């Protein structure tokens, strides 16, 4: 077995209940859940790849494509919606030619629309990597995107 995986699996007993934490650790390490990952997890937990994909695809946290160098999350929570989150989301899609849930062709950004980031009082909010930008506007967004190469 690949060492990358044995390191993760060694922390778990191999029970069905370990599936989601293992998926989370795998995603943390590789950035996404690849076909290879699913195969390795299947061997370890002794459950089918189908079942693993079924569980993983149920939850919005898991992604199945390689992430970009920078990750953009746009908050689609209520407060952000009321303050124009949708318009910001469209601006990102337009500026970067990317569809929500996918990465740009040059691998510079991946883009996700997420449920509430929990800083509603600062709406609308955009998160790029670990930086949170509050009270965003389309104009501010254009400036900020240039900071990430």
């Amino acid at each position, binding site marked *: 077995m690949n060492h990358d995986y044995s390191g993760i699996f060694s922390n778990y007993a191999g*029970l*069905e*209940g*370990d*599936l*989601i*934490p293992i*998926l*989370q650790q795998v995603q943390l390490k590789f950035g996404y859940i690849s076909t290879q990952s699913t195969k390795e997890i299947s061997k370890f937990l002794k459950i089918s790849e189908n079942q693993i994909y*079924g*569980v993983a695809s*149920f*939850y*919005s*946290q*898991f992604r199945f494509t390689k992430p970009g160098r920078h990750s953009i999350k746009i908050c*689609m*929570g*209520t*407060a*952000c*919606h*009321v303050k*124009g989150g949708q*318009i910001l989301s*469209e*601006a990102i899609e*337009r*500026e970067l030619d990317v569809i929500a849930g996918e990465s740009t062709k040059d691998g510079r950004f991946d883009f996700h629309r*997420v*449920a*509430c*980031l*929990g*800083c*509603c*009082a*600062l*709406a609308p*909010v955009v998160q790029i990597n670990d930086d*949170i930008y*509050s009270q965003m*506007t*389309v*104009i501010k967004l*254009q400036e900020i995107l240039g900071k990430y190469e």
Partner: protein
Amino acid sequence: MNNFEQIKKKALDKWDSLIHSDIPVIYLGAASCGKAAGANKVLEIIIETLDEHKLKAKIIQVGCIGPCYLEPLMDIVVPGQPRISYANVDEIKTKRIIESYLLKNDPLLKFAVGHFGGEDKQLTNGLPKFFDLPMLKPQVRIVLRNCGYIDPEDIDHYIANDGYEGIKKALEIGPENVINEVKESGIRGRGGAGFPTYKKWEICRNAPGDEKYLICNADEGDPGAFMNRSLIEGDPHAILEGMLISAFALGATHGYIYIRAEYPLAISRLKKAISQMNDYGFLGDNIMNSGFNFHITIKEGAGAFVCGEETALIASIEGKRGMPRSRPPFPAIAGLHGKPTIINNTETLGTMPNIIRNGANWYKQYGTQESHGTKTFSLVGKVRRTGLIEVPMGMSLRQIIFDIGGGTQKPFKAVQTGGPSGGCLSEEFLDIPVDYQSLASAGSIMGSGGLIIMDEDTCVVDVARYFLDFAQKESCGKCTPCRVGTRHMVEILESITKGEASPNVLTKLQTLGETVKRGSLCGLGQTAPNPVLTTLRYFRSEYLAHIKEQHCPATVCRDLLEYRILPDKCTGCQRCVNVCPTGAITGPRSETHNLDASKCIKCRACYEICRFDAIAGDAIVIRSKRSDS
């Protein structure tokens, strides 16, 4: 218990040396919201400024004290003086304040918003007490009492402020008396449904079996709500002590905290707090030498709103798709791995130490006859003072929105209580007391505590569409009314916001909503139509304007709007020409620009630049297509 006395003494000494510190203490609000507002940068500046002048000071990062609109918040205590709070500090202000106060003994009160001192201090010079600020004065802080006050990463701070006295007392009086006290207090589940907490506990306690589980539900999935995040980030030990009390009363030996993976700071604070509890013997086997054993595991939710539902949450912990199942059997009888399981909301658990420590009678003094105690809310949307608040049950919506929140800038239109599962209430309901019964009778719910305020610039049809779209995407797909019904409702609402709906569509929407409500398996589907049903009831004219006149009164629904340049205001500055992504705006410098509506995608870029740029003239307006005629 001797051991606890020793720990407590040490904690009190530590706290005392902080309160009577001989060097200045700087407190920085560093919860997620503070960090989003720039607290990390402020922290760097604090450290830099102290280094630059070789000043000595303690820096303590605290949780959220509530008024998010004042973030980032920095408090400074100079020995012998009261704690002074500075709001909206940025890099420049921070440096100025520290240099002025610590070097020249001038506290620069013009940047201060309040102090935490007693009445007789002269220094504060007309500065109000922090807790006398209009946003804070009407509040009663029970569960939030330590948030923003203590260092959440230091168990000694919690212990010095009566922490772990609740579990100590619980262990002395025994599980039956704990349940009695909780029954007497009248507290009901703070997650939204309002089921009496003691009743759940009693059922689980009496259920046969040695193995029982307690789950803390911190899967705060409501868009627009952040009470649990703030509480965990600001005072993690309160929840953990609450879990100990609850587990002891139920006879549970293992607990889980099911928390959103999107809350990394809250998770790291919980992990730190758990390891500190282990060090002090407050967790594990033979807790406080009482023979009581309890272990806690943190489970990170992977993003599914439906997992706030008890049986879906359990399925998720078991490593399955988070789909609910029909009840009975209720989890209190057969839950996680088929064993009796109690799921309590974070806020319910965070309140427990206070109830047990101070007694049910103390708790009952707050709130109304039927709904005792306090409730936290996240006050957001188009309200002046946004933030996290805690108020006694029974306070009116008007007091919350106008006294605490400072009202809206433009005329008030509606308030959504209970997030996507709640209802949208109009002005005539502002005087109803906020308690479980009153909100339910108005067609809404208490919910977990998101309060979204809308003014006349918010379109209620668009908001209803937004919530339904959310519910539809989060529907797990198991039962047909929810899976198909919400989808149809979204389609109808979309046709209304586009001005393409026929007049009889509202009856259809109403019937569909009632059907989804009645026929769905779990709480998600049973409450999903609430935003639509309440807006249909209280804001019908707004629906009709969209349908009959193709007009959105709030100028939100994009298909019913157009962008225009007012020729007499346009300065010809070309700012909008440069930002327009589709080349819809043209025109030479210094001449009135032209906007080609057929190319305009209504992205708002021109509107913003025209508003914020100094030489532009507020010439671009967004208005209803109808106002043409």
